[in-house]
């Protein structure tokens, strides 16, 4: 390469693009190194659909208001308190100014999607979804002169003391090196590297499905951690949900989700129930079922519903397995038929008065004398035909990452690395210790992407 850019951004998703655009607007010459080919550019952002946003009054597509404390409380509930309050509040407070920034950089929003009305106040939905957001940002970046290299796999980020001196990457069989003033890492977690997941989780992880991009293999993350860059998070923590067991190994995205658990019983390989299916409304519980299923034999669960519940949830991409009797359903799903019959019988006997059944509210229609109980929406499974779905753990992204400060800057030992910043999923563990709040990943990516871009440009401009 004839001249080195001011800034190299590693990664090509939302956080990387927000960083690149911000830096380019500050006058820096920016190169994006995106590991994926153009068709798969954008990392996990391709599959996202909304942005959780604080707002003091109606804002864009968002109704009413959503204040900092409520937002923070929602976050604390799902993470069980394992949250860096300082950085979380920074992300929450900055989210409000992000929404107009996103619009002025090409992102378009739409009213909350049908079937997601519970999010109309808190989450702004992208018109066309995350890939359209990614497309808009690539268009904007191009206009600002940002150079994008696709299929550009970073192999090594060379550190010299407390600064990055070189970024090595390959395109096909060709090796390249760049020596920019500033480097921003926004290349996600390591979830697509099954071996790494298996080292952290044990062999069970080989049965996990990866909901997003197959390109987030944590190569840059591992390279930096090996060199002593400060890490954060537990390698077993991740955003994981229970998805349709027939989903592809990678990249199944939103359509593989199943919303039927609250109206079902969920059994394991041995046709035994293992958790309260009706603990809370699904948007507040979907993120724990990934780990619940992961803890079962063969890391698989089976949802059983009957005819009266079939139309109570959003359709998913694969049709349910259907049978006229429970035994036939068990045969088709590879479950022990007698055992399934017994589990259903026991469940049905524990069901009581179902007249208060209400599919969209906590209705208190519960079982009695059953372990584990089902505390809402407990209706006996009696009406043929019966339907089944298999469930597997679907990992969205891992939380082990780079520790950053309020400036999105990375550190080594106790000192900041003078020219290395991180944004997005690769540093989300700095904020999220466990659990997940819908739309918060895009908030972290946008807020810290913009901070990283600004800081990296200021550093580059000063040198």
């Amino acid at each position: 390469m004839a001249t080195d850019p001011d800034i190299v951004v590693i990664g090509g998703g939302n956080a990387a693009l927000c960083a690149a655009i911000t830096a380019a607007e500050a006058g820096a010459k920016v190169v994006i190194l995106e590991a994926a080919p153009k068709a798969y550019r954008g990392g996990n952002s391709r599959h996202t659909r909304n942005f959780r946003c604080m707002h003091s009054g109606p804002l864009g597509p968002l109704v009413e208001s959503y204040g900092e404390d409520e937002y923070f409380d929602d976050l604390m509930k799902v993470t069980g308190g394992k949250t860096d309050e300082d950085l979380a509040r920074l992300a929450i407070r900055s989210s409000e100014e992000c929404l107009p920034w996103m619009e002025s950089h090409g992102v378009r929003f739409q009213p909350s999607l049908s079937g997601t009305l519970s999010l109309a106040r808190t989450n702004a939905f992208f018109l066309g979804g995350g890939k359209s957001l990614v497309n808009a940002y690539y268009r904007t970046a191009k206009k600002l002169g940002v150079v994008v290299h696709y299929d550009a796999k970073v192999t090594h980020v060379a550190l010299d003391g407390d600064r990055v001196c070189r970024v090595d990457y390959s395109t096909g069989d060709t090796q390249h090196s760049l020596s920019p003033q500033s480097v921003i890492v926004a290349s996600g977690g390591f979830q697509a590297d099954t071996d790494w997941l298996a080292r952290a989780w044990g062999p069970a992880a080989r049965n996990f499905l990866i909901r997003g991009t197959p390109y987030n293999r944590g190569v840059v993350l591992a390279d930096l951690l090996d060199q002593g860059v400060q890490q954060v998070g537990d390698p077993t923590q991740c955003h994981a949900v229970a998805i349709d067991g027939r989903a592809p190994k990678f990249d199944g995205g939103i359509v593989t989700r199943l919303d039927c658990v609250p109206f079902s019983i969920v059994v394991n390989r041995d046709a035994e129930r293992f958790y309260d299916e009706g603990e809370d409304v699904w948007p507040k519980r979907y993120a724990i079922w990934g780990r619940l299923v992961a803890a079962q034999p063969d890391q698989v669960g089976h949802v059983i519903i009957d005819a009266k519940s079939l139309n109570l949830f959003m359709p998913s991409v694969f049709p349910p397995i259907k049978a006229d009797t429970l035994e036939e359903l068990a045969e088709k799903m590879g479950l022990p038929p007698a055992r399934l019959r017994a589990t259903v019988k026991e469940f049905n006997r524990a069901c009581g008065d179902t007249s208060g059944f209400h599919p969209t509210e906590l209705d208190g229609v519960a079982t009695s004398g059953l372990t584990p109980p089902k505390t809402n929406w407990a209706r006996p499974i009696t009406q043929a035909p019966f339907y089944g779905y298999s469930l597997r753990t679907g990992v969205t992204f891992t939380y082990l990452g780079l520790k950053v400060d309020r400036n999105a800057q990375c550190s080594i030992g106790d000192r900041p690395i003078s020219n290395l910043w991180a944004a997005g999923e690769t540093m989300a563990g700095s904020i999220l210790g466990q659990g997940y709040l819908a739309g918060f990943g895009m908030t972290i990516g946008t807020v810290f992407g913009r901070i990283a871009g600004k800081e990296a440009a200021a550093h580059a401009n000063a040198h």
Partner: protein
Amino acid sequence: MQMHIDFIAEARRQSEICNACRYCEGYCSVFPALHRERAFSDGDITQLANLCHNCRGCYYACQYTAPHEFDLNLPQALANVRQDSWKAHAWPARFAHVFDRNGVAMTGLLVLGFGLIFALAQGMRPASGEGFYAYLSHGLMVAIFSPAFLLPLLTIAISLRGYWTTVGGGRLRWTDLRGAFALAGQMKNLKGGHGDGCNFEDEDRFSHARRHFHQAVLYGFLMCFAATSSGTVLHYVFGLEAPYSFVSIPKLLGVPGGILLCIGTAGLAWLKTKADPELGASGAWGGEMAFVLLLFSVSATGLALYAATGSGAVSWLLPLHLATVLTFFLLTPYSKMAHGFYRLAALTRENAKQRGDA
């Protein structure tokens, strides 16, 4: 009516994936209609296909397009069903295959039409008459063009009745029809939901180019049609015969209308060369392009004929223009022109559904 089962099945497969995703809900009329259903009958798929304006917003926003294994290409899947539905509802059915051979049919009709009208103009030249009536008498023109105009409209009406049955339409209501005309008039479905336009000529870039050129075609065509209609009224009601001066209703409508139609069709043809053909109906590109060029010829020869008033060129320009018009009329039920009628029917049906009419 017999439709291609593979096209319907493929569109159904893709619609079921879209229904589980819903990210594109805000783009156009197709998605809210799609998201209302849990299962899709053949009629539902046919209706969705005719609601689709091929704006391609959903394709470029889609996380499941090839090389993803789900291999979504909803604009093409629906375009295939749409094209096939026009063939399936074509009346008389033996002309359905004309859809697949638009280029050939057009060339044939143009040559025949030109030959016929040129021969008539030479052989039955009126003894008196002004302007183009000096070449072809008014009576003869009416004898040729009345049936050439009315018969295609009749066949289209029969086709639309079949479509209405297929998509389960009930009693036609004025309010639904009015709503459909309003949507078509501003081409709201080519605005992209956010008002930035559609994706067509430059991948995922939104622009109004296609919508504006298409509006030029629509309104240019309507002005030309109004010009002819006003001429008919002047002739029969007021006894005022052509040729009309420049400051007359037929000319004031026809000249700007013709110019708009020229610009619009040229623009659409140009955009079509830029757009990805893989997002349209398989094998229909040539026929669609031929149709746009035919419409361009109608307007261009019309303007040329006006410019040539009084010169000897009228002797061949008149038959040429009339041949393009004749070809256009006769092919209306069996060419891309049909889409306007089906689109209005689909929008009308969608309005009824939104009101809650099953």
